[in-house]
């Protein structure tokens, strides 16, 4: 049987394209990151209510994505949500200790993410430190309830 080089090349390219496509689906579409183990550090924060925040949600600073939520679990001492965040290693030991973390919503129904705002203290946050100043998610029902009861009072 004759070997056809063009055919072999075609099949090779086809399979290569498939593998590259899978890489694209991994990195670009599902947001897996290759350089994560290279440089990242963890911060912790407790929120009274996380609303619809999910693991792997974005963490932004001034709108720029700087990390992802690693895990969310219930803190049984305080009965609030214990969130572990994974941040870009370049930010390690640069964020002031009194920085705040807030759970925000993009758009009315969009995804929820954590927004960090910088404080002014001289001490900085290192790996495994805790952000104390947090702001819970806005839960729509609670807002409406407040609004309605305010109107009723007036």
């Amino acid at each position, binding site marked *: 049987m004759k*070997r056809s080089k063009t*055919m072999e090349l*075609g099949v090779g390219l086809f399979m290569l394209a498939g593998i590259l*496509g899978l890489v694209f689906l991994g990195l670009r*579409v*599902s947001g*897996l990151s290759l350089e994560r183990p290279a440089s990242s550090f963890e911060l912790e924060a407790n929120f009274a209510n996380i609303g619809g925040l999910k693991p792997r949600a*974005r963490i932004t600073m001034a709108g720029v994505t700087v990390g992802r939520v690693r895990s969310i679990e219930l803190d049984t001492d305080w009965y609030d949500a214990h969130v572990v965040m994974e941040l870009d290693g370049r930010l390690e030991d640069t964020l002031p200790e009194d920085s705040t973390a807030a759970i925000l919503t993009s*758009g*009315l129904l969009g995804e929820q993410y954590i927004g960090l705002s910088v404080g002014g203290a001289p001490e900085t946050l290192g790996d495994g430190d805790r952000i104390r100043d947090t702001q819970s998610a806005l839960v729509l029902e609670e807002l409406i309830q407040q609004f309605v009861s305010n109107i009723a009072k007036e």
Partner: protein
Amino acid sequence: MIERIARLGRWGCDTLESLGDAGIFLAQSMFGKPSAEGMRLWLRQMHFVGVMSLAIVLVSGLFIGMVLALQGYTILVDFGAEDALGQMVALSLLRELAPVVAALLFAGRAGSALTAEIGLMKATEQLTSMEMIGVDPLRRVVAPRLWAGFVALPLLTIGFGVVGVWGGQLVGVQWLGVFEGSYWGNMQASVDFVADVGNGLLKSLVFALVVTWIAVYQGYALVPTSEGISRATTRTVVYASLAVLGLDFILTAVMFGGLS
């Protein structure tokens, strides 16, 4: 009345018997010693069923991604949630549309061709003469085609998904003006690699096996006349499409439907 019940019973027995035959056929052809010769035959079939189906699958993927973005946008914009467009496009593509539509296209493009090709080989006694030369046609003709289909369809599905996501971005971001960062950001936050991409690929592996199996079995077992070939080709497309859609429901129920 009794006659009808008897007919039903006969139909049941026949169906079960042909399913059994097809199962033995699959087992006999799929498992065997791999060889250099087998690799070369497989490569040839990869070209035939994979590379040759690439164009139709990619073009369909592009259009489906674009339509998804267009339709999704008009619905989401009513809720002010057009930022979630990327999430919608990516999830519907990866979980459902890429595996299913790629499998349907594959059944039409490659499956029918496989049936017709093997059927023609049977009708012209090529399979019998191969047996007489002392070569098992299951290993020589059927196995490379089965394996090629099994590998090619998941690759085609990946291609479909990638092109679809890109097509959705083309319409959503470039044309309708969804903010690019939120298109990708929302997508990345909601798509899970294992649960969504992985399950989609698992689906497409199942579809690949079933579609190729139906195609080569229909070709191998057909009545070797020109009418038989045309009937078997039609049967391949019909059975394969039904099998894909039916299995898709079952797989979706197991993977995403909370049946566990």
